[in-house]
């Protein structure tokens, strides 16, 4: 691969990969290291990938594997699939709530979602991979992706509502004084 092509590859994908890494690692240095490690692996092994259409999924898969490898924990992944399905739907308040929050708050809420659900959920919100590609990247059936997306969304909504609730507890001092008066 030429250096120009490599630079182009980095420019196209590093921001999305970083956001995915940040949702996994929950801190900037580790997320940055994961992204760098992913591109390093690409530089050393990626040339073997003949199908250009699979590059994006390959990068996300590799980053996720590196994350798991670094953390050496994946045993929890299957047991949580037995959780009951979530029934509650998105409300208009949920939509309004997100619009009012800043990106950092949304990220914190996303990072509070159980990892098993957070991984496909982040990939879904990044919009880079289809649910089929997410299934391939995580090596899980499509049905499991849908199920985890559904549960992940419910957890995220709960986390966002909780953030909103915490925010509502902060009352400006001047208002409190006037209320007491």
């Amino acid at each position, binding site marked *: 691969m030429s250096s120009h092509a490599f630079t182009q590859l980095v420019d196209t994908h590093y921001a999305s990969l970083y956001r995915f890494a940040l949702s996994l690692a929950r801190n900037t240095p580790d997320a940055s290291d994961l992204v*760098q490690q992913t591109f390093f692996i690409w530089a050393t092994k990626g040339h073997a990938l003949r199908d250009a259409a699979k590059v994006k999924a390959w990068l996300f898969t590799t980053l996720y594997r590196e994350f798991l490898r670094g953390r050496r924990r994946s045993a929890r992944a299957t047991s949580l699939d037995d959780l009951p399905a979530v029934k509650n739907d998105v409300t208009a308040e949920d939509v309004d709530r997100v619009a009012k929050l800043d990106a950092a708050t949304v990220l914190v809420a996303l990072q509070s979602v159980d990892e098993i659900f957070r991984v496909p959920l982040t990939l879904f919100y990044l919009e880079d991979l289809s649910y089929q590609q997410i299934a391939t990247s995580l090596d899980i059936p499509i049905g499991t992706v849908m199920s985890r997306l*559904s549960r992940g969304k419910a957890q995220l909504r709960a986390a966002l509502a909780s953030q909103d609730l915490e925010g509502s507890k902060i009352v400006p001092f001047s208002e409190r004084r006037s209320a007491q008066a």
Partner: protein
Amino acid sequence: MTNEQAKFILSGYRPNGQDTSDPSVVEGLKQAKLDPQLADWFAKEQAHAASIAAKLREIAPPPELRSAILAGSSVSGDGAARSPWARIVGYAAAACLLVALGFLGYRASMDPTQGNRLASFAIRDAHASPHGASGTLTNIVRTALADEALALSADVPIDYEALLDSGCRTVDLDGHDVIEVCFRRSGARVHLYAARMDEFPAELIQGDVKSGRINGMNFVNYTCGELQYILVSEAPLETLLGML
């Protein structure tokens, strides 16, 4: 298809519309057009997902991350974390160093390059100028090799073929490609030449290390994996051997 089935399928529909042509989603979309209740659910789902996606897009990577990836250096900033390139080279070094140093009784003769076309060629080439190569991968390799902590008897941290394609300096010896990367280390300028073992079968046997001095330049010729390497520098021979 029931509404529950449609919801299941549509829950994976990305709000940017990239899945519109996905055959398995098409039916769910049709169903949503026919059923107002499902349509309302879908609209809220999409609005919520689009809103989250937009917030996530606002999160920018650290400004130095891109350049760090291209340069192969670390952005951790605390000095403790090493470049991933360096880490990988370090792992490989452990294996190759055993092979290289296992032959510590390296041979030196009056003409240490006698019978070794590659070493003779490398020393002649190292005297020539200009040297220097460009390209992202070359820069990455150069950065990795310059790391004082790394044993250069490790594999060059780039696939040979990939490096050939990357715009690095390649010299021709009897129709064979020999890669050259220049780097600075221990205060000296060092030229690293790499060639496929099978293209120079008579030069050096696997695990062998040759070194010597000729025409004012020291060289160390060693093997690792499917490649053989020659380090050429004006630096003392001990310095070069210390890099292995």
